[in-house]
């Protein structure tokens, strides 16, 4: 705290404000703790019950055990989110750079508005758009070609889906959904690059790209990574769009173009929860707990990649 407060209302105002801030932080912790307690409490039976009873939707309590139930789902969740991030991140950074460094002010504002709009579209609409528009287009024009010509790569091998409800389609839709989150924050960060730095770079004769590489990107790196983490969080937890689009199966597979895809945890909960009872519900909530843990790990890794800059 700053000692230089001589105004009469200063100290009081400071104390109140500080307390408000701290209690907000504590509220977040309490809320999360409550969710965690709820999850653990409801998930516990899935870990403590006889493992051969664990399974969802099977015939009369024949199960495979929690671990083998959750592994394909965990794989699918991370796989889909990673591909989505791989697609979205460069595009989002490109968009943010275009808007902040290339476009004129008026065009920039309109484009920013348009990209923000992508975030405004409800996930149900993305799901429906994925089914009715994107999947058929990709299935007709792109997937057969990829399958025929790049089928030697593990990602594009296997029988190509005719309806296009594949991991690739789901990941593309996820990428579109997280694009505005990443680009909006990146944009703000890039805008804040000190003009002095930029002008110095240009004055030294740098081309625009060199200026971006030397000033804008380093300055915005932490922000871009933080934004990507937010995007990744959304991709990991996205429920409805994946549930609508993906043709799931109980497999672990790198293939992106078939109709046998590992499902994601969130989508699986949404798909199976309504008709589940008893231990099945516990099992599904336990998979939710695993998603929690996965998010935590992914974030920790991203933090390390960012070189600890994301937090101070």
């Amino acid at each position, binding site marked *: 705290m700053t000692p230089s407060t001589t105004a009469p209302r200063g100290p009081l105002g400071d104390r109140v404000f500080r307390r408000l801030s701290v209690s907000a932080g504590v509220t977040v912790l309490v809320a999360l703790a409550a969710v965690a307690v709820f999850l653990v409490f409801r998930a516990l039976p899935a870990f403590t019950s006889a493992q051969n009873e664990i399974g969802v939707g*099977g015939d009369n309590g024949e199960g495979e055990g929690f671990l083998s139930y959750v592994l394909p789902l965990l794989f699918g969740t991370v796989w889909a989110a990673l591909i989505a991030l791989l697609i979205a991140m460069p595009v989002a950074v490109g968009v943010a750079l275009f808007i902040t460094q290339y476009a004129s002010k008026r065009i920039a504002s309109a484009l920013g508005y348009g990209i923000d709009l992508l975030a405004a579209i409800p996930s149900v609409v993305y799901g429906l758009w994925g089914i*009715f528009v994107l999947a058929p287009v990709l299935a007709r024009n792109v997937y057969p070609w990829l399958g025929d010509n790049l089928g030697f790569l593990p990602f594009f091998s296997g029988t190509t*889906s005719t*309806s*296009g409800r594949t991991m690739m389609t789901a990941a593309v839709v996820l990428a579109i959904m997280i694009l505005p989150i990443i680009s909006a924050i990146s944009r703000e960060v890039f805008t804040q690059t000190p003009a002095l730095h930029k002008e110095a770079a240009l004055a030294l004769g740098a081309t625009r790209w060199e200026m971006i590489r030397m000033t804008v990107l380093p300055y915005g790196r932490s922000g871009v990574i933080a934004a990507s983490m937010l995007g990744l969080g959304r991709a990991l937890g996205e429920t409805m769009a994946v549930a609508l689009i993906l043709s799931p199966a109980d497999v672990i597979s790198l293939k992106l173009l078939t*109709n046998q895809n590992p499902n994601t945890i969130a989508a699986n909960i949404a*798909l199976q*929860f*309504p008709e*589940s009872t008893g231990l099945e519900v516990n099992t599904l909530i336990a998979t939710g707990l695993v998603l929690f843990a996965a998010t935590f790990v992914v974030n920790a890794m991203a933090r390390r990649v960012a070189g600890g800059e994301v937090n101070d």
Partner: protein
Amino acid sequence: MIRTKRFTALAVVASLAFAACGGDDNEADAPASEDTTADTTADTVPAGGVSGTLIGAGASSQKAAMQAWQAGFQAANPDATVEYDPIGSGGGREQFLAGGTSFAGSDAYLKDEEWEASKDRCAGDLGAINLPHYVSPIAVAYNLPGVDELRLSTAALAGIFAGEITEWTDPMIADENPGVELPDLAINPVHRSDESGTSKNFTEYLGKVEPDVWTFGAIEVWPEVGGEGAQGTSGVVAAIGAGEGSIGYADASQIGDLGAAVIQVGDNWTAYSPEAAARSVDASNRIEGRTEFDFGFSLDRTTTEAGVYPITLVSYHIVCLEYETQEEVDLVKAFMRYVGSAEGQAAAAEAAGSAPISAELTAQLETAIDMITVAG
């Protein structure tokens, strides 16, 4: 708020039905005149209709029908409101048993342990009963341009969905369809990716008729036999429509322009129809070990009778035989009576394409509904 002529007619019919139930049983000529219990209803249902809010939750398969039932019921009872959360059968049963709702909608009757639990949930010790109010044929829809009629034997059907028959030109299919030019396409079997009563009914059928081919039994989540998964009835229909050579199962009212396979039943070939589906309920036996007022059905999938369509989904309303308050009893009785009546069934048939239950069954269900009382 009455917006369509169709709806006006419905409302009039519905209010007639209520006049019949609520007041003088001699005066109205409602078709549901198997009503022999006017003495019990007369003192529980006020003449001007019931009032209050009735809350239910459960199967989403009933959602469209429920919309019609809500409309018809609320038109006859302007002070009453029915709310229904289509959260799924499992959730519906669980919330009903927890006491959160007055009735549950469910694609399956109460399991034995749930029935035991219902004795605690309901007032008194009679427990809950299953009322089969929504019957709907499950069509086997296909996308084969130029093929107007497709016959599938039980063995072919099970083989396709078990992933053993993979080409449309397979002799198992071709032999039953002489004169039909089957395309040289791979079969893409489409199934539900969400847990659903439709899957359970369909797989129960497959397991009963071809236990050697479909070895997975009655399941809600698809086993590892390949095929494409799609969410919900709409998703399955869209997926079938998207790829030539696809085939899948879906609520018959929703398949739109897709062709529907004619199914082998014994030595006969039967196309789906609401009547044929309703007949399959009449041809089946009630489950045992419950009260005499319980109408849980164990559907006879292996029937060989002509004109019966055995791939049928029966969705229940689960209600208590005894409730705590008179208001709840009045609402439940009035609503269930309307839903099970010929009018209610006709409204559902029009709004959701379901199969109206037979008049005998309506009469039987009414005797059960009449037994609902306040505990004590």
